[in-house]
């Protein structure tokens, strides 16, 4: 089934991944997994240099229709983050913003993050945010309430707190869950389906830190109906990002 992967990174990892160009690697994985669109953030931006990383991603996305971009923004650099959003969100292949609380070292409830979130809500229709636990998910719930026009995807679905993330997604119409995670805990997706429904879940893999087949395996294990697969693998994300429908 055709897929949209909402959680992808472009860059090099400190892991034994076969050496090849990171863009070629992503494209190869997209082809293998039937991923029509991979929405990426730059790992260089997350780990080291926001501007350089966003620029590198912009170049890749401009050259490859399958690759879409999140502008990475960092609460430690508010003015520069706003400038990055202004620069890239005007481009059709940038479709949202990415925030990583741990790698920026700014907690979800810090004043700097609140300022950044206000700016993100002004500039971007979509935010993918790394969530480690229920605290992060609850904090994003508060932002979702404050900024109803902003769609927030809870990356990793708060890890082992995914039940709480699902409850937050049920409450807030503008919150969605992405289940890529190093921990493939059996049953977490079935419970989320029961709590918030397939309409609040999107397919994210964290590739190429994670093999897409690993996350796909979690969804296969959850025994999705065909309709649920269609929604989770493609339709929900297509709607969020304004992408063509499955048969479009």
């Amino acid at each position: 089934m055709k897929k949209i992967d909402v959680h992808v990174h472009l860059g090099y990892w400190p892991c034994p991944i076969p050496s090849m160009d990171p863009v070629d690697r992503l494209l190869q994985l997209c082809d293998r997994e039937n991923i029509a669109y991979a929405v990426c953030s730059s790992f260089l931006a997350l780990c080291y240099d926001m501007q350089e990383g966003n620029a590198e991603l912009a170049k890749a996305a401009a050259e490859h229709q399958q690759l879409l971009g999140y502008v990475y923004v960092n609460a430690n650099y508010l003015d520069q983050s706003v400038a990055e959003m202004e620069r890239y969100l005007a481009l059709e292949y940038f479709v949202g913003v990415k925030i990583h609380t741990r790698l920026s070292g700014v907690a979800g409830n810090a004043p700097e993050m609140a300022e950044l979130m206000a700016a993100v809500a002004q500039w971007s229709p979509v935010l993918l945010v790394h969530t480690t636990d229920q605290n992060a998910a609850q904090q994003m719930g508060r932002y979702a309430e404050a900024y109803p026009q902003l769609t927030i995807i809870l990356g990793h679905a708060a890890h082992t707190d995914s039940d709480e993330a699902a409850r937050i997604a049920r409450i807030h119409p503008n919150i969605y869950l992405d289940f890529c995670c190093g921990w493939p805990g059996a049953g977490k997706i079935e419970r989320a389906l029961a709590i918030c429904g397939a309409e609040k879940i999107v397919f994210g893999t964290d590739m190429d830190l994670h093999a897409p087949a690993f996350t796909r395996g979690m969804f296969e294990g959850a025994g999705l109906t065909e309709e649920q697969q269609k929604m989770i693998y493609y339709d929900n994300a297509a709607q969020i990002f304004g992408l063509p429908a499955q048969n479009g």
Partner: protein
Amino acid sequence: MLIDISTCFGKSPKKRLRYANGVTGMRMFGEPGPPTTQEIDWSLDNLLAVLDKHQVDRALTYSLRGKMYDFVDGNEETWQAGQNHPQLIPVATIDPQRYFGCREEIQRCVDRGFRIFRFFPDEQGWSISALPFLKICEELAEHDVAVMLPAGGQTTIGTVICPFGFNVVAIGAGYANVTESIVVAAEYENFFCETSLIHTADTISAMVAEIGAHQLVFGSNSPESYFEAAYNLVADAQLSAAHKDAILGGNARQYLPLEEWL
């Protein structure tokens, strides 16, 4: 033949997982909050259902009772499960911290037919380089057995445990430490890597290219984890059918002392 080398069954008092403990421990900025929990069905019935669903021919399994409470009763429970369900191959466990009775339990298990011993130093709070465990290894080295240990200290496993001579399987290496597994496997022929969390894209196929397929063995961590997630890592890897077959069962069959159970 599909062989899953990493499964368990039993109960948990806290609905709290080892991974969840880690997540709770690394909460950012000391924000307060309840411990993270997940509902997991660890029952033997659920394990058997998972194995049947995926047509697993044999699963190496242990009772959580042995890990979390009493290894003698736990090994007994594991043994009974193996007797009642031929697809289960019982794995014994010993907690070296108890000291008294460890040697006798090893002998009792070996006499009964246990051939795999699995240890939990991280969860039980002891070190694999501590003398009590090394004495257990001396004892085990007298028998035709293999040992399973958690990944996370592969270099120590290689330098301290592999010289005992029995085959050792490191369970659960992931992106934080799989490089260590590659290097240790290249250095020690009796070191094996279980694959359930080698989930970085194409790392399993890269490992096969680097060290060969013969030191990789499939485990799913069922019923805690989605079986399919671990299975796909091997089944969908860019590998020949022969290499996949080896990882999914052939290697366990060849390199672990399972003859009596197959």
